């Protein structure tokens, strides 16, 4: 029997639930030499701010057991380059869902950027990043309090009538309280979750490995925590969730969906293996067959 991999995400029909996570796939264009991007359900583009940013000093990558840390710090060419150059160029080679990941340093900046993303034809979904751990006075600062996360959501929803998914921070005591506040403010969905704030020290130099000292920890080590948060948020809220955190296989995708994810983002695994998303998409039908699953949509939130 032909397996149905398609899913509905915020009113969009995706051919499958596999989406490379923001920051691990560039603007899509960088990956076109590896495989046909059209086999992906969607692509979440690199986090974008109003002004171009150089990011943090290097080193901004560190290794850990079963994962990695990054402190890239939102290096990006700015919102005008995103909507004027990157997305139109990607659209020439890709017809799946395009998710613009938007950051900011003030509520006004989030709204400004999202209004531009709304006006850009090539963008289907706006993912509001209130959870970047690598920038000061922005990013995660908005995502760790229900009131500020809701304020960003409300401001964005006033100017953007495309589906708005809020990318939540896992660095909080109660992710459900923040999700509920965002849902009340009009969020159309969530990405659960961003990276965990972490650190490594070089024993020889006795200094932090990262120039920024701390960075976002990701990879298979965080999968069970991200899965738990997907389960909590998807059961507490009525809007769809994109599961994100340590996904490295078709089995992980199915587990995230059973926990409640309507689509699943693959992050760090791309950095180990640029072909990771293609491999996962190709593995899905056989993995589904082995588990007696005919349609992925039927398993969403069944646990």
């Amino acid at each position, binding site marked *: 029997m032909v397996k149905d991999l398609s899913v509905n995400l915020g009113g969009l029909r995706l051919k499958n639930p596999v989406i490379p996570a923001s920051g691990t796939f560039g603007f899509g264009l960088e990956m076109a030499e590896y495989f046909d991007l059209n086999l992906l359900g969607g692509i979440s583009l690199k986090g974008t701010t109003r002004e171009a940013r150089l*990011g943090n000093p*290097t080193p901004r*990558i560190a290794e850990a057991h079963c994962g990695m840390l990054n402190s890239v710090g939102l290096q990006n060419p700015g919102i005008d380059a995103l909507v004027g150059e990157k997305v139109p160029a990607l659209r020439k080679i890709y017809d799946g869902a395009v998710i613009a990941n938007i950051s900011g340093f003030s509520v006004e900046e989030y709204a400004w950027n999202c209004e531009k993303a709304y006006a850009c034809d090539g963008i289907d979904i706006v993912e509001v990043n209130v959870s970047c751990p690598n920038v000061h006075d922005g990013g995660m600062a908005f995502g760790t309090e229900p009131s500020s996360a809701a304020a960003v959501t409300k401001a964005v929803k006033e100017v953007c009538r495309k589906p708005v998914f809020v990318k939540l921070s896992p660095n909080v005591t109660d992710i459900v309280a923040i999700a509920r506040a965002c849902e009340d403010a009009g969020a159309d969905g969530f990405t659960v979750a961003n990276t965990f704030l972490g650190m490594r020290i070089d024993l020889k130099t006795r200094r932090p490995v990262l120039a920024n000292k701390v960075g976002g920890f990701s990879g298979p080590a965080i999968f069970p925590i991200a899965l738990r948060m997907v389960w909590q948020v998807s059961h507490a809220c009525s809007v769809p969730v994109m599961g994100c955190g340590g996904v490295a296989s078709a089995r992980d995708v199915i587990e995230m969906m059973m926990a409640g994810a309507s689509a699943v983002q693959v992050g*760090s695994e791309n950095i180990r*293996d640029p072909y990771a998303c293609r491999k996962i998409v190709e593995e899905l039908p056989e993995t589904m067959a082995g588990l007696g699953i005919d349609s992925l949509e039927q398993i969403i939130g069944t646990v």
Partner: protein
Amino acid sequence: MKDDFTIESNECVAERTWRLVLLSDDTHYLFSGEFVDIAVPGFYLRRPISVCDSSEGRIVLYYKVVGEGTKALSGMAQGSRLNLLTGLGNGFDASLCTSSALLVGGGLGSAPLYPLARELKAAGKNVRVILGFNKASETVLEEEFRSLCDGVEITTMDGSRGIKGLVSDAPSFHRTDYDCFYTCGPLVMMKAVCKALPIPGQLSLEERMGCGSGFCYGCTVQTASGPRRVCKDGPVFNKEDMIW
């Protein structure tokens, strides 16, 4: 390109320095300055290592045991399999040289200069080489360069081999008949070389990398022409690109 290779040999050739020869069924044409990204079993991120030599289905790499990943790599036996990403990076531009080039290597930075020397010699250029090491026991590739080039000088910091001191203490550093230079090694050495030589030159940078392929933006450096990824826009840059 991703491919599985078989270890033909993996041996210690100098202090903490290993020579790894890998075989593949496919032909990999690798150019000078290019690197591969090796998945070491048991470690999360790949290890980027410059290519020192390549021929049909065979590549030669030199690496230093500096941490847990390279330590594990050094323990891998002949016949073991390794997964590599190949074809990474922007290499040296041999056409920069019109007739005579100086190559300056520091430590294992000497390795990526070897295929460049071969390329330059094949094009009929005059090639002189200075290789700097901390001490005699760390010296590598001396014979390989000698068999190829028009002059090779070795410097060591402690004077245990060749000229005592820095690469700039070698007499051939002060010749004026070069029309360009190429350098790879510690940043302080490359900075000194770029500042001292008033001719066009290229250098190969090193940085902690994530993807090695240009999409994670983990290894970005600021250059005179804006932010550039060491893995994709480099690792080789022109002297003028550098903001020292």
